[in-house]
Structures are given as structure tokens and as C-alpha cells.
């Protein structure tokens, strides 16, 4: 799920306030016809599920209004806090790693080497992006198994003698960060590089004349100028992190049950729905996740002035 979401940053480049002249617009039916198909899908798979989830979260299985009952019930579940704790730990590690490393690498590729060489690097980093989802987890199951891994020496140096030791529940955040970074970072490096490429040469040249070294230019000039992308990257990485499902689910399968089947909130919601048959509780967990994702996005968006819609 990661690399493609990453590329959404693409569109940011062109978000500019658009001055409009309403008088020249045509009012009328045509617009409605053009948006009709999309609007139907938006209602069916965006708005209705959200509304339905809210409805379920505030009622019980007989459709009676229960107020915050479902939320209190799931929040008191002994698996609830650990699940949110797990993704929080994962998110902090993942955000720091991906933002720092992709930015550093993009700066290096942009200012420290010839464009031809840097394009080869960008391409090589980008390739694992094709292995999103299930495939990437499966590859890393092999990479983390000291018996077959090409890095088994490294694993053993860390004290892991067999696969079971690697797949300890407490290692899961690190494993998930590794997988996410492997598939997602390449796309980000490409995007960050493009953003850096957009900074006029004259600016950097002026800095060089003034005696700034490459790291100083990076810190004082390049970084502030690509802030918008970094913020956007954080939003998407955060949203992706809150939704973890397939990765811990597969790791759970492969760990022969040592990893909790309710490691992430989405998995907990899944267990509620399909093992307990409690769709109201599952919906309450979904609402928690939605709220968390939207609050963080809202804070980042408003604080950074991202997504400037057309100012009429």
C-alpha cells in the first residue's frame, strides 16, 4: 500500500491558488453530468460506509442507540491499548526513519553526483516498490530467516539464531519498518529528488559563493524549500501506518501464532467482526482509526497550508 500512496505527492507540485473568473464559467447541467459517475462511487464507497460505520458504532446488534457504549466497550478490551501502542511505536520509528533518510539521500543524489549516476541510483532504490503488499512481506520472511537469509551473518551477530527468535512480538515494529522502508522509500526518494531539482541553481550557486558547504546548503536552503513534501509525506505515512493489516497478519501466520492476531487495530476490528460477529464493536474501532488519521492530517494540513484550494 505504500509506494503508490507515496506518489500522491506528485500532485502537490502544481497546487497553486488558481484565480478564477466566475463570469466565464457555464452554470448548469453539464457539470453535474460530468461528475455524476464519480459522485455515485463517492457516495457508495466513501460516504455511505463512513455513515454506516458511525451508525453501527453508536448502536448495538438490535439497532438500539447505545451512545458511547461501543467505544467504551472496545476501549476496555485488553487488546485495544496494546494494538494502538503497537502502531504508535511503529509509526514513530517509521516516520523518523523515512523522513530523515529519504531526505538525506535525495540531497546527496541531487547535489553530490552526476545526474546520470544519480538516475541509476534512483531507479535501483525504486525497484522494490513493485513488491508492495503481500509479496514484500513474503520476501522479508525469507530475509529474516537466519537459515536462508543472505544477511544471516548480520542476523546472527544480533543474536538471532533461528526464525522464531527473529519473529518475537517485540521485534515486530522494527520488522514492519524494514518492510515499509524497503518498498516505500524509493518512491519517496524520487519525489524528494524532483522537489530538490526544482530549486533554482542560482540559489545554491549564491550560497556556494558565500562559502556554504554542501551540508550547510542542504540544511539552510534545500530543506526549508521542500518542507511541503515532507509534511505531505508525513500525512501519508501516518495514514498508511494506522491501517496496517496485511503485514502483521502474514507475520502472524508465519510466526505460528506467537505474534498476536490482534497486533494492529485493524486486525482487532477484523477479529471483532469475523470471529465475535460483533460488527458494532468493529465499527467503533474503525471510527477510532478514522478519527486518529483525520485529526493528525488536519493538524498537519492546517499548520502547513498544504492543499490550498482555489481562492475565489
Amino acid at each position, binding site marked *: 500500500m505504500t509506494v503508490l500512496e507515496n506518489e500522491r505527492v*506528485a500532485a502537490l507540485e502544481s497546487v497553486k491558488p488558481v484565480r478564477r473568473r466566475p463570469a466565464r464559467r457555464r452554470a448548469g447541467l453539464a457539470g453535474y453530468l460530468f461528475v455524476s459517475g464519480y459522485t455515485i462511487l463517492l457516495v457508495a464507497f466513501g460516504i455511505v460506509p*463512513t455513515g454506516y460505520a458511525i451508525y453501527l458504532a453508536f448502536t448495538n446488534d438490535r439497532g438500539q442507540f447505545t451512545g458511547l457504549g461501543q467505544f467504551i466497550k472496545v476501549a476496555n478490551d485488553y487488546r485495544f491499548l496494546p494494538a494502538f501502542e503497537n502502531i504508535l511505536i511503529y509509526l514513530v520509528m517509521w516516520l523518523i526513519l523515512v523522513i530523515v533518510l529519504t531526505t538525506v539521500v535525495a540531497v*546527496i543524489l541531487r547535489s553530490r553526483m552526476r545526474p546520470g549516476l544519480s538516475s541509476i541510483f534512483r531507479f535501483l532504490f525504486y525497484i522494490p516498490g513493485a513488491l508492495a503488499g503481500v509479496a514484500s512481506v513474503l520476501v522479508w520472511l525469507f530475509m529474516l530467516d537466519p537459515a536462508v537469509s543472505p544477511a544471516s551473518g548480520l542476523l546472527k551477530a544480533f543474536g538471532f539464531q533461528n526464525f522464531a527468535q527473529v519473529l518475537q512480538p517485540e521485534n515486530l515494529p522494527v520488522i514492519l519498518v524494514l518492510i515499509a522502508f524497503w518498498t516505500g522509500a524509493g518512491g519517496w526518494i524520487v519525489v524528494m529528488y*524532483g522537489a530538490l531539482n526544482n530549486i533554482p541553481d542560482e540559489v545554491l550557486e549564491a550560497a556556494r559563493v558565500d562559502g556554504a558547504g554542501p551540508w*550547510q546548503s542542504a540544511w539552510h536552503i534545500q530543506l526549508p524549500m521542500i518542507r511541503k513534501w515532507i509534511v505531505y509525506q508525513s500525512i*501519508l505515512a501516518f495514514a498508511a501506518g494506522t491501517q496496517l493489516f496485511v503485514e502483521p497478519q502474514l507475520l502472524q501466520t508465519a510466526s505460528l501464532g506467537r505474534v498476536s492476531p490482534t497486533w494492529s487495530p485493524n486486525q482487532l476490528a477484523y477479529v471483532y467482526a469475523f470471529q465475535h460477529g460483533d460488527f458494532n464493536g468493529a465499527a467503533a474501532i474503525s471510527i477510532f482509526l478514522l478519527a486518529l488519521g483525520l485529526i493528525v492530517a488536519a493538524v498537519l494540513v492546517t499548520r502547513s497550508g498544504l492543499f490550498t484550494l482555489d481562492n475565489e
Partner: protein
Amino acid sequence: MTTTLDRRAGGHTGTRPVSRFVSTGIVVLILALLLIFFVLPAIWLLLAPTKTAGQLIHDFPLSFGSFGQLGAAWQHLTSFQNGAIFQWLGNSAVYSIGSLILTLVTSVPAGYALALTEFKGRKTLLTVTLVVMIMPSAALVLPTFLELNLFGLIGTVWSIILPFSFFPFGVYLVYIYFATSLPRDLLSAARIDGCNEWQVFWRIAMPLAKPVIGLIAFFSFVNNWNNFFLPYLVLPSSDQFPIQVGLNQLLSSTPSFNPVAGKGLNITSPELALAIIIAILPVLVLFLFSQRALVAGMLAGATKE
């Protein structure tokens, strides 16, 4: 964007030979480590199906086995549930391409209308689209499942194609593209020349929108191809699985990861590795062929290269 030259601290140390040497060393080290990290697993994956499960453990991890063993792995994999992997690939193709077509048919006109026509509720629609875009979509998978269930669509092709074809990001991309790069005067001129709204869209806007259409097609296809959660929930039987869910089933049939269920089956690590390669092949090919166009499109003409 504002230049920040004025904020630059006056450091003059960067060009000293020693620090230059150190900083180059750091750069080389970072790049080398990352290169190994990104490329090594991919190389290992390509070599794994040429070896037996035993060789995977005992031979050098990056050694080549034999083509004979590759053929054997292929045999084992294709005979799993009488060629289930082909069925899964076919299913994935149907789901991905079906949704892709619906996505294009709905999102291109919608993005166009949001950018270049005026109607009541336009801003609301745009705002809702942005909100849905940054919403963690997996949180909606369960309610979507219930909704599909309500309409009796569970287990049908539509239970995958319809939700997949909802792609707000595509609408947003088209909106940005038209809002920033299509001169409004061009449309006015066409209208004065007697084009109706449909003709303006079809004859003027569409031919200019090719790059962004390619971009959406790519994102939508790859998203659909890799999606796991929804098909995992709504499709009950193996002959309907897309390849991603099929891989999950293969994993639970591999003895090294599931000693109980995997007994007696011929699916071992090399077969699993081969299945992974086959599963990602369509996306990989798409990646390789469209990399240049993608990067260019992603940055929407912003690069100087």
C-alpha cells in the same frame, strides 16, 4: 516558495580538505548500505527458485542453482490446486482492469468538471474528495463489506470492481492537471465556435489530458493489483481469489511456515519465491516501461532535467 538565503548561517568550514574527505566518506557509506538493502533481497528473490529448499539453506545465498530446478519449481507451483495460480492471475487481471476502466470513465470527467465548469456544490465535492483522500481507507473496509453484504454482492466480481473503481486520488490528479495546465480561454474559444459542453470535453480537453490519464491508469492498476484486505474479506472461495490472496494461501501451505497444513504439499520455499516473482511481474514490467513517463508525470513538469 521563498528563498532562505538570509537564514543561512555563515559557516565557512565545508570546503576544508579533511572535512570534505570525511563527508564524502559518509556519503559513499550511506549510499552503499542503502544499495545493498534495496537490491540484495531482489537479487536473492530472483535466484531462489533455481534452488531446492535444501540448497537455499546450505548453499551460498546468492548462488545460482540450475534451470532444471527452476522447471521443477514451476511444475510444483502450477500443479498446486490444478493450476490455481493461473486462475488467480486471471482474476487479478479482471479485477484490476475492470476497475481501471471504471475509474477512468468516472474520474476524468469529474476532475475536468471540478476544474473547469461551474455548478452548485462544486466546492463541497472538491473538499469531500480531499478529505476522503487522506482518510485511512482500510478503516472503511469493514463497513464496505457490510454494505456489499446488504446488497447481496458478496462473492461476486462487483464486490471487488466497484469499490476498487472509487479512486478519489485520480479525480484530484485530473483536477490539478486541468486547473493548472489547460488555458480557460481555449475552452471559451471552442464554445464560441459552437461546441457544446460534451464536445469541448471530448475534443479539446481529452486529447490534452493524455499524460494525466496514463498516470491515473498506472496508479489505479497497481493499487488494484496489490490490494489485499477487501478481496480477503469478500471472496469466499479460492477460485475467485486475486493473486495477492492466493499468495497468502500459498504461504499457509508452505511447510516451513506452516508445518501442519503444509504437509504433503509440494509448495516449499523455492515455489513460494517463484510465485512471488510471478505475482509482481505485471507491476514490475509496468514499472520498467513507464518509469520515465511516471517520474515526469509525478512531478507534473516541475523538473528541469
